[in-house]
């Protein structure tokens, strides 16, 4: 006990001291939290609310010069989107990115994680680092690299496939192949991230469980299905939800590699929003597109969490 405490005799004095301490703590807490809270309120929540209002107006290129020309048009932008073939096309492609690309990406991560985590694997940290390397690279730079790899005449992809007798494909120029080509790049770039999370999760599966199952004569596949997967369920849910959300927001890959083409076959919702907003300055319409994307992501996340939770219980 310090000297000040000894001197402060009586319940009243002690209570008052505690009150000033609590007051000082509250003041310090507010002061320390203030910069972050203020910045996030002003530069994040502010724009989000402003965006909600924008999406209900006809804010366009004229409004940038003269903001007083903006009119409130209610749900006009949303209705306009629903009547545009371009919007439905972008929505469909975004759904393919999220509902095909993301599961493929998670599957590749999980398969590689199982290999890296296997008992007989050597140099585990080395493999982990190598598979993780694409994650830290700059997307724009590697998208440019892959653009050249996909080049029909001189690209390494066709050269490699040619060795197996597969004829040349115009990867980024053919509307059928451009989207799968972009997904391959996206998976290559991202799978190392989830790999790391899966490896951490696998290390938490108790070894005794595996050994017991092995003694009972369970095959490798049965052990994976009945021991590993249920234990991995929370990690799996986290990984599949976050990965799906990321694939919903795909932008730089198609922007750099195909500009959304050919024939708009790779045009994602974010790319459409960017074009509408910053090429044509239809900011009201673009804001509505952003909120539609948000709603789609929320809906898909809710569905996925419900599905996987039900499966976990069964």
């Amino acid at each position: 006990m310090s000297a000040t405490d000894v001197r402060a005799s009586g319940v009243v004095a002690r209570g008052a001291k505690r009150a000033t301490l609590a007051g000082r703590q509250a003041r310090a807490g507010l002061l320390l939290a203030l910069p972050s809270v203020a910045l996030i309120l002003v530069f994040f929540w502010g724009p989000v609310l402003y965006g909600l209002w924008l999406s209900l107006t006809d804010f366009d290129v004229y409004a940038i010069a003269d903001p007083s020309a903006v009119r409130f048009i209610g749900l006009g932008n949303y209705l306009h989107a629903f009547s545009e073939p371009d919007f439905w096309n972008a929505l469909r492609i975004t759904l393919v990115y999220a509902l095909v690309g993301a599961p493929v990406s998670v599957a590749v991560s999980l398969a590689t994680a199982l290999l890296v985590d296997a008992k007989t694997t050597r140099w585990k940290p080395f493999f982990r680092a190598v598979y993780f390397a694409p994650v830290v690279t700059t997307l724009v730079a590697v998208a440019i690299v892959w653009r050249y790899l996909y080049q029909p005449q001189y690209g390494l992809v066709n050269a490699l496939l040619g060795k197996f007798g597969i004829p040349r494909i115009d990867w980024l120029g053919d509307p059928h192949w451009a989207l799968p080509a972009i997904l391959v790049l996206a998976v290559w770039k991202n799978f190392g991230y989830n790999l790391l999370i899966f490896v951490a999760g696998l290390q938490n599966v108790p070894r005794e469980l595996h050994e017991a199952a092995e003694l009972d004569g369970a095959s490798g596949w049965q052990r994976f299905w009945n021991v590993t997967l249920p234990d991995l369920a929370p990690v799996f849910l986290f990984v599949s939800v976050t990965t799906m959300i990321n694939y919903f927001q795909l932008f730089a890959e198609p922007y750099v590699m195909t500009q959304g083409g050919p024939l708009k076959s790779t045009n994602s919702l974010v790319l459409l929003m960017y074009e509408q907003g910053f090429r044509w300055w239809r900011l009201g319409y673009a804001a509505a597109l952003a909120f539609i994307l948000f709603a789609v992501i929320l809906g898909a996340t809710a569905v996925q969490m419900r599905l996987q939770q039900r499966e976990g219980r069964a």
Partner: protein
Amino acid sequence: MKPKPGALLLNGILIAGALLTVAPLLWMLSASFMPTGQANSSPPPLLPSRVTFEHYRELFTHLSLSRAFANSLLVSVVGTLATLVTSSMAGYAFAKLKFPGREGLFRLLLTAMLVPAQVGMLPLFLMLKRLGLVNTYGGVLVPWLASVFGIFLVRQVAQAIPDDLLNSARLDGAGELRIYRSIVLPNLGPVLATLAVFVFMSSWNDFLWPLVILSDDRRYTLPVALASLVGEHVQDTELMMAGAVVTVLPVLALFVVLQRWYIRGVMAGSVKG
């Protein structure tokens, strides 16, 4: 003891996978040293016929990529420092200091993680336009000044600081800010290192926001400069590969050196709080 065939196969698959994974990066490096035009020959060469640095020289002289490099460095360093300061303060406050509205504010911050960044992007652009921050370094920096993820990360670690330690400092008459500086900050060292690597890499690699907010190529960051370069020099494969190397190499080197911290951040992000 002879290794089992299963183990050989397993390690073989992993090595093949690793080769496939690094192949695009190795080819990028190799092509950047090829003489002009060599990459566009059939069959595609894997190694330069003679090593040349002319593309790097051109990037840094005629094409002023050094300026973009400096811009990227400036934005990433300042953004990282800002996030470290704001997140360490707020993370500690939300973990250890009782103040009115604390839980509500924290929930509000966490909800922000649910909203995709693109939702606020167009209106933020308009706001910054009114503030005269479009096409400035300040404008590029705005998203990197505070971080919900950073606050969350710091808060988790700060919660583990023993209350007794803080209280005894209070009884010794230390002010709250001094406690933050001399007791809390030293305890946060490792998590701040993780956060620093994370923010530096994310801001270095960021593309959509600088693309939106910058119009003057003198202020372009590397990814934006690279994307605009590919528009003009799409035929110059070797030159573009050199540009890609310059962009990717700093973060890749940083990752190799600071792996431990980065991996810790990935894991922390996956732990549900």
